């Protein structure tokens, strides 16, 4: 088959801005991966192409890059599955990290965030003579997060990191759960206290980008949400995120549906924050945004059953 790669090139040492270069490869095998094609380019067409790769088996995490706009592993992606109607495949470096050259990005940002969460087991008390003994069941919840190969795909495409480089981000927070959920770790409380700060678990928008692009099924966002449950249960409740979540649930429990105005107002912890809602509230009124059923938040028909369902299932929490 023919492969038409459109590769973003950029060498900060010489180029004023990134540009695209097209490589047409003919006679490639049907199952050719994007990585196979890039290696073919580098070996036989253009040795100046900068890229990282190693295992070619979705294990080492070296070859993460954006393919048709989304981060993934080039070794795991067949050209035939991503070629556009015109036959082309667009290959770009990952996002949210600076480009060193072509498809190679600087991982310093990534590693700093991993370091920030304290990525090692912090035990207390006497060290056992042999290994720490833990029930198998108590480690099962960690299987999801230990699958991370640190390829950077989730960090590349995180929509919050694009707006705020200080966000800890999906990879580091998934790694954070790996220790919060580990029965051998003795610093669970201080970890949670750290992760609820600005730039931590409550800054995730649950946009599912990290879930979508993770090549190993780690689903970092799901672990961020797990950390939120753990933090709330551990008493870290003085946060707009917790208030928002609680008021949301109470509103639906009482009336069957959401009272948006109440939710916005009661989520805000300070008077200043509450006042920040006033302009948008006034604009809504000026634009005649009256709910079709009138201004009062009424109980939906069957709301009593919604409340009963809440009570039955909250008891299981």
């Amino acid at each position, binding site marked *: 088959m023919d492969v038409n790669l459109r590769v973003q090139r950029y060498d900060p040492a010489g180029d004023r801005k990134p540009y695209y270069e097209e490589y047409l490869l003919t006679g490639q095998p049907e199952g050719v991966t994007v990585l196979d094609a890039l290696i073919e380019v580098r070996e036989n067409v253009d040795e100046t192409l900068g890229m990282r790769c190693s295992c070619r088996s979705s294990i080492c995490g070296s070859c993460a890059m954006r393919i048709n706009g989304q981060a993934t592993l080039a070794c795991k992606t067949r050209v035939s599955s991503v070629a556009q109607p015109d036959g082309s495949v667009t290959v770009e470096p990952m996002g949210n990290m600076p480009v060193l050259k072509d498809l190679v990005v600087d991982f310093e940002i990534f590693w700093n965030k991993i370091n920030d969460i304290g990525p090692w087991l912090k035990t207390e008390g006497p060290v056992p003579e042999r290994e720490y003994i833990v029930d198998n069941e108590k480690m099962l919840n960690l299987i999801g997060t230990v699958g991370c190969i640190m390829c950077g795909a989730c960090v590349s495409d995180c929509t919050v990191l694009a707006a705020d480089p200080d966000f800890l981000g999906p990879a580091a927070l998934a790694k954070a759960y790996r220790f919060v959920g580990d029965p051998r770790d003795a610093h669970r409380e201080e970890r949670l206290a750290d992760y609820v700060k*600005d730039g931590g678990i409550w800054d995730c928008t649950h946009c599912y980008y990290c879930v979508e692009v993770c090549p190993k099924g780690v689903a970092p966002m799901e672990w961020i949400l797990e950390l*939120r449950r753990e933090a709330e249960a551990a008493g870290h409740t003085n946060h707009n*995120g917790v208030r928002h979540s609680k008021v*949301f649930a109470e509103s*639906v429990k009482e009336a*069957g*549906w959401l009272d948006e105005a109440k939710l916005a107002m009661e989520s805000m912890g300070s008077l200043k924050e509450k006042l920040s809602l006033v302009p948008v509230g006034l604009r809504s009124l000026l634009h*005649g*945004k009256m709910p079709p059923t009138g201004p009062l938040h009424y109980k939906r028909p069957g709301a009593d*059953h919604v409340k009963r369902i809440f009570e039955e299932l909250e008891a299981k929490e």
Partner: protein
Amino acid sequence: MKYAFYPGCVAKGGAPELYQSTLAVTKALGIELVELEGAACTGAGVLSERNPELADTLNARTFAMAERHGLPLMNICSTCHGVMCQANARMQKDPAYLERINTHLAPEGLHYSGKTVVKHLLWVLMEDVGIDAIKAKISKPLGDLKAAPFYGCYIVRPSWVLGYDEMPQRKRYLEDLIEALGAESVEYTGKDKCCGFPILTMNRDNSLKMTGTHVLEAQDKGADFMVTPCPLCHLNLDGSQVEASDAVKAHLDMPVLHLPQLVGVALGIEPKALGLHKNMVNTRRLVEQFAKL
């Protein structure tokens, strides 16, 4: 063509123009709706974060209501849609889980078999009504107007819950619809990104910056307006645009239409009947452009 209609909380609350434009457009296209008056909030991802089984049970209750009518379900919110599709997928793959959930529905006389088909209005338009039938009813093709599509996260991710593998054309429904209505669809990177609304009360600066960045990109690419199938995105893109301007230090003036408002204009429905005057970013200039079509 008939659906059990799930309007969601926002269309019945802060975005009444979405509700009224949906009714106007479905009527014009001959789509019959039976509104599920007693259906609860989907949980919008917030309830499932607190208590996944609780959120799934509330959605199972809604699906059971649709099933009692013998109808597929139509929603008008990307977030509701994604949450419903996720809940449906979990229950469909685990019969024991579904049975456990059904024990909570039984006291109300409801039972969910797992078979309710869930579709967003966008999918209904593209898959059930069809482009040709919509085109046949267009009285005001949108001429040389440029529209920037903004999907909303939950109608695009996770793609495997939304049937994208089987139906890859779903990735371009908004663009295809915009073009079918006669307008030009603006290509820009923000179209499937997050509007920032979910963290508006937790990290307002980031939330506004996210919204401002996408609006600014659409504006820089020459869009006359944006269009979204998600009322939560609309709350931020439209409702918070004044504050988002400050966040990205640029003057933003970008009308943001709900999906049925856009379709309604092309079908020749009066802007007032579509509630365009209720959008927060002034649509007057856009309405004048529509009048000249």
